[in-house]
């Protein structure tokens, strides 16, 4: 058992949580869409901009060297955080979406051709669907999706059948943003590799909540975004096995990613990781993401998970008393997500009435329309928890939901 989190004390590190919304203290339960930032992360960005902002990798002057050191140090932090073998296997991207598009357009164009299959699942975020559909359209491949069971787990039988058809790639979500389902990344990777597929994992909702070790999982690509893990927006990470990354062509051309440029003789590219980082990167974002990951590690991944599971369990218990309550995704509470619909009410109405009581939740399809279609619902109300949420906030949320339902049914 890890040492329990003291959420009440942790909250003091999040200035935004002091504010009021509609005259009520803010209860922020939209962590899965974006997490709030601790003061350490805010200060890291400020410190950089106040004291050592300069462009990286090219200046001989002190500021540029200091910025470059901090930027590359952050890369090493990411490497250790996700257990990559080498720091050059972690590429900075504009976000998780950007990272998936990079793989689709670089690795995908080289390895997926006419008649090939790209396998995804029905619980993917649109960011892990649309880039593959665009690629498939361009090269004449097609996209198939593994079915999801009623409880929100992947349909193992369907997976086995679809893997047996020999897809080139299996791209799946580690933790579902809508259902909270935690997929067994390692087992799925082994299964996919045995079928000859390359594996890409969308880890956006995993990295904020649990320890991830990409070498243990064995996947070929792993991606996550900064802003869902207490870091800034506009920065994300692509992990790829060195062998694969080295063989891949750059996706975007420009400065920073070159070895030598000549009009007559053409251009040669820089080595890893820079060949995938054209243009001036989001330097302060990368540095602050490193700070965020260290900050999170300091809390202990076990403690984070225990805390969020406790909050989710309490929320489910409280919400269960509401007549007509239907939870969407009931396999696991590990990811700290509670997604639901209530008979006779629209998620939008519930979300609006919660907002006017100071409670921020997400309503709608959560960028997972195929999943909504699978359950035959227009959307859900989703409460998602972070380290700074307290049991008291969960109680406020449950009471506010009860009140909303009473008003709507009135």
């Amino acid at each position: 058992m890890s040492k329990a989190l003291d959420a009440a004390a942790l909250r003091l590190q999040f200035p935004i949580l002091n504010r009021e919304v509609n005259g009520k203290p803010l209860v922020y339960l939209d962590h899965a869409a974006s997490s709030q930032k601790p003061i350490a992360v805010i200060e890291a960005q400020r410190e950089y901009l106040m004291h050592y902002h300069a462009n990286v990798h090219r200046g001989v002057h002190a500021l540029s060297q200091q910025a470059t050191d901090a930027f590359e140090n952050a890369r090493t932090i990411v490497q250790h955080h996700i257990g990559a073998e080498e720091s050059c296997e972690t590429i900075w991207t504009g976000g998780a979406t950007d990272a998936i598009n990079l793989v689709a357009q670089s690795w995908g164009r080289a390895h997926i051709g006419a008649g090939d299959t790209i396998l995804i699942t029905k619980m993917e975020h649109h960011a892990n669907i649309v880039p593959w559909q665009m690629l498939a359209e361009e090269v004449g491949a097609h996209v198939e999706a593994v079915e999801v069971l009623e409880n929100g787990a992947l349909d193992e039988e369907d997976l086995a059948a679809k893997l047996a058809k020999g897809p080139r790639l299996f791209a799946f979500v580690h933790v579902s943003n809508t259902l909270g389902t935690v997929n067994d990344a390692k087992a799925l990777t082994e299964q996919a590799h045995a079928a000859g597929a390359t594996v890409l994992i969308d880890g956006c909702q995993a990295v904020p909540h649990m320890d991830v070790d990409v070498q243990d999982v064995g996947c070929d690509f792993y991606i996550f975004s900064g802003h869902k893990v207490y870091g800034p927006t506009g920065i994300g990470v692509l992990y790829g096995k060195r062998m694969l990354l080295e063989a891949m062509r750059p996706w975007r051309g420009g400065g920073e990613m070159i070895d030598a440029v000549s009009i007559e003789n053409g251009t040669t590219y820089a080595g890893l990781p820079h060949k995938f980082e054209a243009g001036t990167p989001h330097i302060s974002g990368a540095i602050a993401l490193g700070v965020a990951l260290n900050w999170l590690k300091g809390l202990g991944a076990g403690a984070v998970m225990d805390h969020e599971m406790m909050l989710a369990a309490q929320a489910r218990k409280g919400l269960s008393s509401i007549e007509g309550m239907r939870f969407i995704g009931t396999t696991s509470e590990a990811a700290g997500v509670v997604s639901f619909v209530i008979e006779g009410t629209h998620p939008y109405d519930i979300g609006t009435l919660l907002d006017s009581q100071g409670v921020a939740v997400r309503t709608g399809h959560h960028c997972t329309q195929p999943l909504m279609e699978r359950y035959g619902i227009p959307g859900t109300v989703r409460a998602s928890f972070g380290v700074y949420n307290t049991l008291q906030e969960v109680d406020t949320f449950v009471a506010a939901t009860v009140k909303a339902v009473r008003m709507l049914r009135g």
Partner: protein
Amino acid sequence: MSELLQQRQEEIAEEFEFFEDWMERYEHIIELGKELDPIAEADKLDEHLIRGCQSRVWLLAAKDGDGNVQFRADSDAIITKGLAALMVRALSGLPPAVIVQGDLWFIEKIGLDAHLSPTRANGLRSMVQQMKHYGIAFQAQG
């Protein structure tokens, strides 16, 4: 006829005057939503759907014998339906020209202007635009 629009807006503004917080306002909007006659299922066609809302909103318009525009609206979310009810109450039965030119000041007056931002998912903005479009179309018919 624009006096009628003026009068209706004053009525609505008066009605909302004494609500102290958003929960009270929403309670009233929900009531208005419940009181609005639903559109028959057969009329809930995709061509009557307004885009840009998290909930589905249907808006129908027809010209009556006096040349005025009669609106009907419905939504699967009750707060959105309440907003639709307010719009119908303000604009239905008015001549196309008044609908097109009318300044809908009551929206700001009752604090719903924040709901008019294009990023809001409730569709109030789309509703207003669509009603004005109907006005323009009927005006063109003469």
